[in-house]
Every structure is written in C-alpha cells, then in structure tokens.
C-alpha cells in the first residue's frame, strides 16, 4: 500500500518538475509601474457564499468588506473603518470613532448604526457563527452613540477582543442592501465598502471582482493610499495543484494559492513567494480522553513519544511545512509556549516503557493487549480537505512507527459529509482526530479547551477534556489586562494541555503563495493570511 502510494506521488512529482522546466523565465525585478490591468488569481476551493464563518469565505470577503480595525505585522491593532478607539477603565466598553464620509458601494453611509447592526446580526441573528463563537461569552451589545461613534460593551473585560475582530468574519456589510435583497444576492454579492465589488460569479469557474473607484477606507496597513490600482481581479478556482502551479508558468495566472510542496523550491527561484504560518490551533490531534485506551494519560503520552512526528512532517511536506510540537497553539500565535512544544520528542523506548507500566503487554503480532483487548486506535481524519495526499502520507509513516511500539492504528479517512455531518462527533467513534482552527489570538484556547458543562456545553472540545484548572487559567488569561501576564497564563494553559497529552501536536496550518515577478505589492493580511489585491500593481 505504502509503496504504491509513493510510486504515484513520484510520477506526479516528475511531471510537476517537467511542468516547471517548460516555462520561460519571467522578467525579474524592477520595471515601470502600470495602472489598470487584471490580476488572475488561482485559488483552490470555491465557497458556497462570498461571506461566512469558514476561512474559505473570509479569503474572498476580505476583498469586498472592510473591518473596523486591522492587525499589523508587529501584532498591534491599527485603524481601518475606525480611526481611533477608547477602552473604559474597567475594560468592558470599547468606543470606536468611525472614519467620516465612508460609503458602502450601494451609496449608503458606513455609520455607527450600520456597524452596530452588523454586530447584532453576527451575535444575535445567526449571521456568522464563527464571529459569534470568537467573542461569545463576552459580547453584550453594540450601540450607536451618534453617527460616527459606536460603543461595544462586553460582559467582562476581554483584551483579545480587538485582535479577534480583525478577522475576515467581522467584515462590515451594508444593512440597507442586506435587508432589502434576497438571500441569493446577499450570498453572491455582499455589499461592503471594500476595495473591490463582486461583479460576477461564474459558478464552478471564477468570481470576477471589479475595482471600487470610490474606495476611501483602506486600512492603516495598506501599501498605498487610494482605490485599487488594477481594474479587476479574476478569482479563479483551480482545484488541481499541477494545473494551478502550471498556470503561473504559462502566464495564465499571476498569483496562485497553495503552491504544491514539491514545487516550492522551484517557485522560490522563479517567483515572489509568500509563506504564512497560520496562528491559532495548529493541525494537532484531539485525543479522546473520555472513552477507550486514551482515558489513561500514560497511553496518550506513549502515543506522543511513539512516532517521529517531526521527521514524518518534514519528509512528507518536503520541508515546506514546519512541524509543530505544541498541540494547543501554533508558533505564530502570540503567547506561544516554545518550551512546551519541545515535549515528547521521538522516544520509542520510553513509549514502550510507559505502555508496559500501564499494563499493555506485547502480543505475538507485536500489538499490545490489556485484559484481552488489543491496543487499537481509531484515527479519523478528514481526507482531501483537512488532509491532502501529502498529509495522509505523514499519517501512514507514523502508523508504521506506532505499530513498532505496539499500537494498532486504524487510519479512517472521513469525507467532509461524514465529518461535518457529525458521524464522528460521538466519543465512541474515534480515539484521535487531527484538526485545526485559525485564530490570531491565544484566546482560541477558550473556544477549544474550556470544559463542557451541562449549562454550557462545548462541542469544540473534541478531546472531551474537562479540566477545571485549565478552564480557570484560560479564563484568567482572557480577562488579564497586562499583556505579559496574560501570555504567561496562556503559556501555563498550553503546558497543562501538553503535560496531560490531551492533544498531540503535528504541523502548522500554512498558506503559501507564488506571485509573478511583474506584479508588485501583493501582501497578506496578518490575522488569517488572506491575500490583499487593492495595493497591487503590474510593472512593465
């Protein structure tokens, strides 16, 4: 099985290299800046609607909708639709001053009432469940003080609030357009105040974005002042990696997303490349602590020691995607605990010792048993959407290593319909399942790891790990005004999760882009890594 897979990967890799050789070198560097033109961008997945709570929607809604504030490279909060803001001394009231005379593309004003309506829509009307869950227990109300001042009140102090609303899910839409139009139009052509408007959506092929000539509300992090320099962006959906990357070589596209890892080296020599390590929960295993063999902490730790995760990741992704030993948050997240990430380096002897102590004895076939039950691990993974073919290979490599220490790991590929339909939601259906959740703030720990109680069930805690000390530590960190102190607490929380092996780290969620040499100033916004095209220009 393994060999066959490698063989197939080899053919594709060889073809990809061939694909690379054929393309002529683009004119490098310099050149005279041009106005106008159309950027052809090769994306992978087509979302069902232009905006929503899935990152695939945030990518494209970022082009059309503006946010209140944005995240700068250094992690500071910078003005966008809001020029300034104040926080009440008790930390529960945020008052934003809006930029004046900003209009949505339907001509209505971006005023305090509009912003307040958006918050109400996300939080109370089911408008965006990711926006909701991001600030859920803390959000109280949004009210328009006057035309240019909006006040957002929280139930308790929550300093990560500003960082969280820099995400694409918090793009401000025109309430007038939204309320006067049908669901279909709102889905296909949301009206914001952004640098582009949706001109046409050719389903199954591309979304054509046209420049908003009256754009006035670029973020403080923009690379130029004024409307978009290019006329249009053709946002194409090219699911296949070979053709997506090839289209850049033949000049049919100017920017491509998700460069196949085998092509990354080649891309670095021929194009401008951007690699973004997504903050938030990395691709790490949720470990089912409620039922099955992983209820025993020693077995979880043995599982973490038992496979050379680092080497598997490096080999599987051709060194492009970094290994992440911290199961709680990725290395690009503020407050990352680098020490905790070092735990459980590959140590098969230790894994075997832990299993022996825990009473799992090796049988004739090398698989351990206890009380007549084999040490079988159901590892459910999202095939072809969370895990690419390369990711699946990483799992297969580790499966072999786990076998050597006595785990019988069953890899269970799950389709999106199965996984999202809840087939593997129940604790009885899996022992470990890898997944990620992007967020620019370590407060993601609260969403994922807070204990599930009867009054406040937490479906996101897929390890079913209910640790009150952990919950309290994260809660304190979330409310801590002093950033250093907050990060120390977040660091403790990560340590607890790692010590208890309630999750096991694997690799960071990445976004890679390759940009043609004659297209300048394509940049990624900081919170989620969405490409920004409103500053980009062609050179000749």
């Amino acid at each position, binding site marked *: 099985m393994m060999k066959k897979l490698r063989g197939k990967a080899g053919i594709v890799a060889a073809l990809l290299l061939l694909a690379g050789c054929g393309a002529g070198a683009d004119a490098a560097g310099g050149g005279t800046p041009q106005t106008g033109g159309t950027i052809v961008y090769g994306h992978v997945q087509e979302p069902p609607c232009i905006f929503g709570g899935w990152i695939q929607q945030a990518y494209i809604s970022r082009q059309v909708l503006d946010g209140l504030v944005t995240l700068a490279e250094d992690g500071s909060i910078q003005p966008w639709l809001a020029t300034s803001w104040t926080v009440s001394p008790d930390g529960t009231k945020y008052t934003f001053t809006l930029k004046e005379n900003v209009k949505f593309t339907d001509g209505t004003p971006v005023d305090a009432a509009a912003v307040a309506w958006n918050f109400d829509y996300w939080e109370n009307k089911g408008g965006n469940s990711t926006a909701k869950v991001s600030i859920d227990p803390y959000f109280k109300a949004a009210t328009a003080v006057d035309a240019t001042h909006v006040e957002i009140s929280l139930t308790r102090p929550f300093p990560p609030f500003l960082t969280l609303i820099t995400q694409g899910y918090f793009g401000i839409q025109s309430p007038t357009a939204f309320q006067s139009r049908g669901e279909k139009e709102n889905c296909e052509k949301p009206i914001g105040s952004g640098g582009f408007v949706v001109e046409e959506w050719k389903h*199954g*092929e591309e979304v054509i974005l046209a420049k908003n000539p009256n754009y006035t509300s670029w973020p403080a992090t923009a690379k130029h002042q004024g409307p978009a320099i290019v006329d249009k962006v053709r946002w194409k959906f*090219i699911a296949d990696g*070979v053709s997506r990357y090839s289209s850049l070589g033949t000049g*049919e596209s100017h920017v491509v997303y998700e460069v196949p890892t085998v092509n990354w080296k080649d891309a670095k020599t021929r194009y401008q490349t951007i690699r973004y390590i997504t903050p938030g929960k990395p691709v790490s295993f949720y470990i089912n602590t409620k039922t099955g063999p992983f209820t025993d902490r020693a077995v979880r730790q043995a599982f973490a020691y038992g496979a050379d995760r680092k080497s598997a990741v490096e080999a599987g992704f051709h060194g492009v995607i970094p290994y992440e030993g911290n199961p709680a948050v990725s290395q690009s997240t503020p407050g990352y605990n680098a020490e905790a990430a070092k735990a459980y380096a590959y140590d098969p002897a230790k894994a075997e010792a832990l299993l022996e102590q825990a009473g799992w004895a090796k049988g004739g076939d090398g698989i351990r048993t206890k009380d007549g039950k084999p040490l079988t691990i159901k590892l459910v993974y999202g095939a072809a959407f969370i895990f690419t073919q390369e990711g699946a290979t990483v799992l297969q490599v580790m499966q072999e290593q786990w076998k050597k220490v006595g785990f019988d790991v069953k890899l269970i590929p799950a389709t999106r319909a199965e996984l*999202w339909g809840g087939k593997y939601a129940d604790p009885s259906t899996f022992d470990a399942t890898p*997944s990620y959740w992007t967020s620019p703030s370590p407060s993601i720990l609260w969403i994922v790891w807070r204990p599930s109680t009867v009054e406040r069930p937490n479906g*996101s805690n897929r390890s079913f790990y209910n640790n009150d000390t952990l919950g309290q530590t994260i809660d304190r960190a979330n409310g801590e005004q002093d950033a250093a102190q907050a990060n120390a607490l977040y660091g403790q929380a990560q340590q607890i999760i790692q010590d208890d092996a309630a999750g096991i780290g694997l690799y960071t969620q990445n976004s890679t882009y390759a940009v043609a040499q004659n297209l300048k100033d394509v940049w990624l916004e900081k919170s989620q890594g969405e490409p920004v095209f409103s500053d980009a220009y062609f050179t000749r």
Partner: protein
Amino acid sequence: MRYLLKLLSAVAVVIAAASVTFFAQLAVPGDRATTLMNLQTGQDRKWTAEELAPLNEKYGFDDPIVVQYLDYVTGLFRGDLGTSYTQKRPVLEVIGGQLLPSLTLTVLALVVAWFLALGVTLLTVRRGRFLSGLGATWEAMTASLPHYWVGIVLLVVFAVQLRVFPVIGGTSGWGTVLPVLTLAIPLAGFVGQVTREEFEQVLAQPFVTTARTRGMSDLAVRLRHVLRHAVLPAVTLSGWALGALISGAVITENIFGRPGIGQVLVTAVDTRDMPTASGVVLVVATVYVVANLLVDLAYGAIDPRLRRAT
C-alpha cells in the same frame, strides 16, 4: 402508442432516480442541520438543539420524511427542484449554469472517441499482423488509462511545454480541446475494442466475400458493408458512455479549471446539499434516458431490418 409508452417509462425512470437519490441521502449518517452549521463555520463539532433549531425550521428537516418526500416530488412536477441549502439559489439555476459546459464536453468527447476508434479500426483490422497488433495494443492501452493521468500528461505536453492550448481555458474553444481529449482517448479504446471484435467477425462473413467478388474495393467493402454491422455494439455502448462521461467529467473539470455539473455533484454530496445532489442525479438520469432513446433510433437508421420490424 409505442412511443408514448417509451416516454412514460422514461419519465418513470427519471422520477425513480430522483426518489432513490432522495432516500439514499437521508440514509447517509449524520444530520443535515449539523452539516450546514459546520459548513458555515468550518468546524466538525456537535451543536446543541437550540443552535440547530433555526436551520431545522427553515428547511423543514423536522417534518416527517413522507412530507419531505411528497414536497420534493410534487415540486418536480411543477419544475421546481428546490433551493440549494448552501448556495441559497434555486437548484435549477445552480445546474442550469453548469449543464451546457458539461454537455459540450461529454458530447464532443463521444464524437471524438468515435472518430478515433473508427479510424483505428478501419486502418488496422486484418491489415497484417503488425498493424492489427498495433491497433489492438493501442486500444487495450488507452482503454485502461485513468483520466487523471491522461489529463495531466496532455496538460504538461500541450499546455505547458508546447503552449498550444491553455492550462485553464474555462469554456473557451481552445480550452475545451484538452478536456475533450482527456475523456475521449480512454473511451476511444473501449469503443475500438468492441468494434474491432465485431469487425473481424463480419469480415469473415460470406456476404463480404460476395461483395469483393463483385469487384468492390477493400475500403468500400469496409465502409459500406462491414462497418454497418460492426458498429452496432459500439452504438449500444455509447448510450451508456454519455451518462458515464458526465460523472467522469469531474476529474477533467478539476484539472482544467472548467465548470460543470460533475463538480456541482461532488460538492453537493460532500456538503449534503440534498436538493442540488438530487437535481444533478435527475439531470444525469435524463441524459441516460435520452441517450438510450437516441440509441434506439440510431439502430433503426443503421440496420434497415429493424426499421421494417416496427
């Protein structure tokens, strides 16, 4: 009368296909409202009953299955295929926009496959050991090629190296060439294999010898007498192929960034967008039915004996 019966049975087949799809999708484990919530948020978690209530209410997921089914079927007779859960558009519109590129791709692929297959057959059957062997090998080889492989090789050679065709040509004329070939080459192998066997047998028939003794040229014998007999099995195969190509088109669409109902179906099944998935199945079933009616007609045209029988 006979045609009326045929038409009625065709309608019955289509309705049956839609019904089977409807129930098959209900049988898939997992809850539709949960899927929609997870799709909207990119998560794979459980949701509370209160969180799911608005969606259940909106799409009537809580209604008895019989009610949901009757709603769906009566909708079909009004030409209403429902509204996509995920895209919020009428299914008719979701499919309508993608149908033409898919039909263009599949019909062209079928035509090209026939030309390739007949060309190889006419030129190589009983043309000496070497040519015959070459033709047979070519057919066996192409028939077993996976679409993904054919597509990638064509892409690398003709789009990347030679730059004759675009990599992502969408629905443009030039952009359609490679996708069509991707589907046509393996199909030509199938059609060729079937035709070759029949062709060889017919060439040995007494009437062929008779025709030759009348002084007919070899090419004329092959074209006018032998081919007419030999294509019948391949014609039957084409009815099946047209439907199969529609579902096989998804790989090609993915490689060449081409719209089409193949992609719509995969996404719809993946996200449990039941109205859309059922709609696509309905369309594919219709294509099958129409294709088989056409095959019946073609039989009559090719074989005069069948015409007289009716």
